[in-house]
């Protein structure tokens, strides 16, 4: 260590105080700071897990990366097939699928239970390139292009014979091969064979039903129109860029990214979550500051005599305060480190033993940007809480302090 008689002396004193001071107090303080760190970040970790999961599901099952909707004042996209063809040629687009949705009432013929749902039609081949339904078939098969009289049903809509096991209102236990009656909005009623059942784990997604576009056309005469067109690009983050590319190709329909589509529903939940998280952060910070204050205060009161001695032999006040601040920072740094380790351990445990949420299993993720914020806050709070008692004791008269 080079020495210039300044804050180097603070460091010199601090290092020795930490090395030869009370181990159990130090350990306890570090542990408390670590726990505060965990408290401040745990909820955020869960929230970001939920958000990630929700986003993934929105992209993988509901909107793709970009969704194209009818122009203002129009109900459908006309010339959908031509638009799909054009979109497929835009560089960066890896999949395009046109959807036609309509309201329908589905009845389980076996038991007469019925549910009103929106029934969606897609071209199964196109759909594969955008969404993941064909990958989550739990029973039976995915739709194929020419299918007529066949329907794909989500597991929650299919439900169980024992109603008490249902998570949402269902058709009371539909199995592959069962027959359901679909009453369309135009009055046509048709019986379908259940071809497959899928399970994405997303509550909303798993209570829907799908038929092919040709099937829908045969009933609703929807022809070449679509209610929306989903587009998949290279990544979720590139969606805004993709949106502008699509618009620059002269598409006049409304073009929205998955994020713009999804904001409304989840946005409120997330902002409530964030509020709770901020309250928790605030309370945790108060706990941290009180703990650091008490620990430093007791520590420094116990060493009042020592501080008097140091002052008597000519050590400047600022240097003594500095040595206590270094000790506080050291506790803080260790606490933060242990806290990060704990958070990662929790995140690991929760990855192995997954948490089930309405939209499926979440994988908690440590959010490093809010981690950074909590580190800065914790350090500031600790420094202030360490500074106040240190300053107070250091300002005592030498002889009073030396009396102990």
């Amino acid at each position, binding site marked *: 260590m080079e020495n210039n*008689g300044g804050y180097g002396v603070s460091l010199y004193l601090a290092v020795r105080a930490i*090395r030869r001071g009370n181990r159990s107090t130090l350990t306890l303080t570090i542990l408390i700071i670590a726990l505060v760190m965990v408290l401040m970040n745990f909820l955020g970790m869960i929230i970001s897990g939920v958000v990630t999961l929700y986003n993934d599901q929105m992209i993988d099952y509901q909107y793709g990366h970009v969704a194209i909707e009818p122009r203002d004042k129009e109900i459908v996209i006309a010339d959908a097939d031509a638009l799909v063809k054009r979109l497929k040629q835009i560089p960066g687009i890896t999949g395009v699928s046109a959807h036609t949705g309509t309201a329908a009432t589905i009845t389980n013929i076996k038991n007469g239970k019925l549910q009103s749902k929106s029934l969606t039609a897609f071209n199964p081949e196109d759909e594969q390139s955008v969404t993941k339904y064909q990958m989550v078939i739990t029973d039976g098969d995915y739709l194929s292009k020419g299918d007529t009289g066949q329907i794909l049903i989500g597991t929650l809509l299919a439900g169980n014979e024992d109603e008490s096991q249902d998570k949402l209102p269902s058709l009371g236990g539909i199995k592959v091969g069962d027959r359901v009656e679909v009453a369309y909005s135009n009055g046509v009623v048709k019986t379908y064979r259940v071809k497959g059942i899928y399970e994405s784990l997303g509550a909303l997604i798993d209570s829907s039903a799908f038929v092919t576009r040709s099937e829908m056309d045969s009933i609703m005469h929807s022809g070449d129109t679509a209610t929306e067109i989903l587009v998949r690009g290279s990544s979720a983050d590139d969606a805004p860029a993709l949106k502008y590319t699509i618009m620059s190709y002269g598409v006049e329909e409304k073009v929205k990214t998955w994020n713009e589509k999804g904001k409304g529903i989840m946005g409120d939940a997330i902002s409530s979550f964030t509020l709770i998280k901020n309250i928790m952060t605030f309370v945790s910070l108060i706990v941290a500051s009180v703990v650091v204050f008490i620990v430093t205060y007791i520590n420094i009161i116990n060493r009042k005599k020592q501080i008097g001695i140091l002052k008597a032999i*000519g*050590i400047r006040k600022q240097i003594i305060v500095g040595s206590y601040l270094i000790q506080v920072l050291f506790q803080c740094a260790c606490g933060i480190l242990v806290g990060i380790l704990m958070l990662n351990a929790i995140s690991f445990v929760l990855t192995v033993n997954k948490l089930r949420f309405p939209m499926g299993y979440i994988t908690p993720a440590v959010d490093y940007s809010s981690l950074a914020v909590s580190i800065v806050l914790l350090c500031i709070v600790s420094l202030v809480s360490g500074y106040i008692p240190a300053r107070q004791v250091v300002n005592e008269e030498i002889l009073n302090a030396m009396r102990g």
Partner: protein
Amino acid sequence: MIEVADLKKIYLLGNVEVAALRGVSLSIQKGEFVGIMGPSGSGKSTLLHQLGLLDTPSGGHILIDSTDVSQLDDDARTWFRLMHLGYVFQDYALVSELTVMENVAIPAIMQGKPLAECYAAATRMLEKVGLGKRLDHLVFELSGGEQQRVSIARALVNTPSIVFADEPCANLDTENSRTVLELFRDVNRELKQTIVMVSHEPWHQSYFDRIIFIRDGVMDEERIESEGKPGGPPGNETG
């Protein structure tokens, strides 16, 4: 060289004024080994604290090496203590988290000298007080006499112009007291070190070049006149 003129210290206990020093004037020459003696409560410690800049007097002037130290502000006093003064306290006043060598080195480190130089000076000083083999011990591993020798080494490490000692032998037995006093006498003779020491043990008088008697916060002029040759140290019985 210390010059004191009309030094006063008044403590306020609630509404009651306690005059601990009531106008003391004296001068101490460079290289003198001065004893301050007097009855308990007479103001010996108070005087030493004022001279050593550990407290602020209520009135009067103190000149140390022609600096009027009563005019200095807090930071300047701290700096003055570090650069020019050394202290030995009755209860040793060592820093428990530092080793013997670090305790002695810390005033030198604070002066901004290179660490190696500080440790070398500390080692030299500790060898002088006979603790050359205890450098890396912690303070609590030492006996009271040894701790007091560490504190003497610390007081001397920066070769201050004056060393102040307030009853440095009060907690020591005769044997250790003698060691400490002889140490003081040696550095006083060899290094021409000015030493101001408070004591109430008559047998310490033989070590002092001069004695300042204090009674009720003033100098006891009569005793300075009348007190002749000091008595020898006691036999086996302790303080």
